[in-house]
């Protein structure tokens, strides 16, 4: 008798929980559909939380690792002004990483966990930062193309359904446009310079064009996460749409520089009012994403070294604060 009673109680409870879950899910989806912002303490599906933690932390890691290819040129920039500008850009990238880690933490993951995931190689970050910067023109190409592609991705994210992420993106987008202008300004100076400078600019464009197109991710029918991300209004446009927009915007900018985009199939299509472009070699993308890119190991080594070499600062700060707390407690 008791067992029966308990069983039926149990089943009812389960049924209620399932109904509650379904009700909560549909109310959540209704809020998203109505363009309401989901905030940190609001109910959300576990999968929504997980996908946001993954996306926001990957974004944060990308900003931090992104400091490295350009940081390489701080000591080598051709003038004092270029050096100070580059320092400011790299500082911004560090700041962007910090905003994004903070946004990710609102979803219940700790900073320590996220840093560990990056340093142990478990976390992914944007593949674009696994390429080297062999010349000054690469710094220009990165600002123009890589930040340009990032802006194209990031503007729609300002309207993403998760409040903390959307607000971080608004702040980031405001700062990002200086980055792109800085890069284009470098390319402009080189393109209008000596023959050697023009060649350097062209070579950088040749190196960075296709990796920049790959930044938008695989074509949507090959992308696992896209459909659900769209339903949850995390993603507002498809990868292909954004990539097309980037090409349409950037080719005229290359034309103005007098540089040639390294794509023999690139052509304006009058009917669709878009540029047609050649096929992307996704094998390269997959290899770089899997850790086989030219700089993957170097990037991670640099991050680990920075983390290790900075340990004494963190320990000193912690010890100092502990000492002050003890003194304050004694005085009280």
């Amino acid at each position, binding site marked *: 008798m008791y067992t029966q009673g308990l069983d039926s109680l149990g089943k009812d409870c389960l049924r209620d929980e399932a109904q509650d879950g379904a009700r909560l899910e549909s109310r959540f989806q209704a809020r998203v559909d109505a363009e309401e912002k989901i*905030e940190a*303490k*609001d*109910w959300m599906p576990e999968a929504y939380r997980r996908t946001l933690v993954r996306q926001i932390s990957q974004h944060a890691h990308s900003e931090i690792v992104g400091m490295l290819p350009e940081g390489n040129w701080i000591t080598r920039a051709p003038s004092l002004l270029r050096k100070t500008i580059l320092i*400011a850009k790299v*500082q*911004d990238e560090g*700041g962007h990483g*910090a*905003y994004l880690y*903070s*946004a990710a*933490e609102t979803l219940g993951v*700790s*900073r*320590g966990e996220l*840093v560990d995931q990056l340093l142990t190689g478990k976390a992914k970050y944007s593949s674009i930062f696994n390429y080297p910067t062999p010349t000054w023109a690469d710094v220009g190409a990165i600002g123009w193309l890589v930040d340009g592609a990032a802006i194209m991705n990031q503007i729609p994210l300002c309207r993403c359904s998760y409040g903390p992420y959307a*607000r*971080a993106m608004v*702040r980031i987008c405001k*700062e990002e446009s200086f980055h792109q202008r800085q890069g284009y300004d470098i390319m402009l100076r080189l393109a209008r310079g000596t023959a050697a400078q023009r060649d350097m600019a062209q070579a950088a464009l040749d190196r960075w064009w296709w990796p920049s197109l790959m930044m938008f991710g695989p074509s949507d029918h090959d992308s696992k996460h896209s459909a659900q991300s769209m339903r949850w209004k995390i993603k507002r446009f498809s990868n292909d749409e954004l990539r097309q927009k980037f090409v349409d915007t950037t080719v005229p900018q290359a034309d103005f520089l007098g540089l040639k985009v390294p794509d023999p199939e690139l052509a304006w299509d009058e009917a669709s009012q878009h540029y047609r472009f050649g096929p992307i070699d996704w094998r390269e993308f997959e290899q770089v994403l899997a850790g086989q890119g030219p700089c993957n190991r170097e990037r991670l080594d640099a991050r680990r070294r920075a983390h290790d070499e900075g*340990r004494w600062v*963190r*320990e000193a*700060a*912690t010890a*100092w*604060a*502990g000492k*002050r707390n003890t003194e304050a407690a004694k005085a009280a």
Partner: protein
Amino acid sequence: MNNEHDWPLYEIFIRAKSGLDHKHVGSLHATDARMALEHARDLYTRRQEGVSIWAVRSTDIVASDPAESDAFFEPARDKVYRHPTFYDIPDEVKTL
């Protein structure tokens, strides 16, 4: 605060030069109040966005429960007479 990653979380509020109030701009980890202010300055005012910073330990913030917000804010819902637009003042009357 054993692990450097366990540094307390601070919420940061900035008042702009032309602003009247402090706005929440984000958060950061710091060992103490002074570091929180200096890091907030470096992180959130790189473009002179602020003339004043408030840093508050996140654990000190008490927030209304979003799950209860309907009930919590209900009292004001049926009191439209608190708004000036509720009142129909004839057009001839000036400055009212």
